[in-house]
């Protein structure tokens, strides 16, 4: 059996995965009706220009938006600035939001686009081969080793093309479902799966020493 994420045969895997998803019906719904109703009220009030209501929405989605941007950009300070930009953009376009899809997905989409804009502006072109991954197992203590792994992961994620990185971040860190990722990134579900598959394949290659470590 071939290595996970290797590109040959990937198309067949994705095709099979998509057909399996199409067969699936009766998706379980997990929600809190009261919380959703409150969010709808907040959105409606914000759309009428209520900044206080929008502030509540910011508080609700702040952490998720910062996380998405941070994982995309790899810089915590920059992540906060870009997250603020994303919320300002959300406010400016709030009237175009329709409650057909969750507000979270909509604001994540704005955040992901804001992060991609920043990456484009900085012409961030990380070359995978230029990212030396630290050796494992030689750390003086567990904390140092953990930090080392975290840095290796950050570098590996940053080495991905932004489009694949966005899919991986939304799936692995934010736990979004394929359909939600497709909504956020505005791409077909098959493309989500191919990007995820590619990203994981690259992660397996770049982080091989850490994956093999006990």
């Amino acid at each position: 059996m071939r290595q996970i994420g290797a590109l040959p045969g990937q198309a067949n895997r994705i095709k099979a995965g998509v057909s399996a998803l199409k067969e699936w019906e009766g998706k379980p719904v997990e929600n809190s009706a009261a919380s959703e109703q409150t969010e709808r009220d907040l959105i409606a009030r914000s759309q009428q220009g209520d900044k206080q209501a929008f502030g509540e929405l910011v508080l609700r989605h702040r952490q998720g938006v910062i996380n998405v941007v941070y994982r995309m950009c790899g810089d915590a300070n920059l992540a906060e600035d870009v997250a603020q930009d994303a919320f300002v953009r959300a406010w400016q376009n709030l009237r175009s939001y329709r409650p057909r899809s969750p507000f979270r997905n909509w604001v994540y989409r704005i955040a992901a686009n804001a992060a991609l804009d920043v990456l484009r502006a900085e012409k961030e072109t990380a070359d995978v081969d230029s990212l030396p991954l630290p050796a494992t197992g030689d750390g003086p203590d567990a904390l140092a080793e953990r930090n080392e792994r975290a840095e290796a992961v950050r570098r590996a994620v940053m080495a991905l093309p932004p489009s694949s990185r966005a899919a991986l971040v939304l799936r692995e860190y934010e736990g979004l479902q394929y359909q939600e990722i497709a909504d956020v990134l505005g791409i077909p579900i098959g493309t989500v799966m191919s990007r995820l598959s590619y990203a994981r394949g690259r992660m397996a290659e770049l982080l091989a020493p850490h994956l093999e470590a006990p």
Partner: protein
Amino acid sequence: MRGHVTALLEAYHDGELHGRRRKDVEAHLAGCESCRAELRSLQAISALLRESPAPRRLTPPDRFAAQVNLRLPAAPEQPAWQRLLHIGWQAAPVALFAAWTFIQAAFLVAGAVFIAAQLGLGGSLAADLLQLSQGGGTGIAASSLSDLWSVVLQTLSGGGPLGWGVTLNLALSALIAVLYASWLASWWVRGKQQRV
């Protein structure tokens, strides 16, 4: 399930498989070490990624929200095309009512003029109009004008209880009614969407 389930492993790992497909994959995994190893690799990648810490909290949530608030313009902006669409949508019932009123008035006036002219009432104006409708005037322009006037007057004035005029009037009224019903339906759907 025959063969390996490699194609479905990522979807299975991500919790995107349900029902029979999920059971099939689980049954296969129970007896296939190769696929189990691949699944473990996927799980290891996810675990390693999630081990990476979230960003430090540089700004407390309230302060972050306040900073965002300071950067907000006065009110959410509405794209120009949406503003125009919104105004048009709001004005649609008034426009439809105005159109219906105009059509009814046109039919009424035309009918009254035609009858008055036929009965010789209304003095010289009605007679002139009738003459015009019957081909009065000189020259090409006058002839074209009289032809047009004749057609309009005779069409709008009815031509009998179920003539062209009545049919046209009914058709236009029905069209306006359909447009108004569509507007009402879209208004209802819109209201429902906003409540959802």
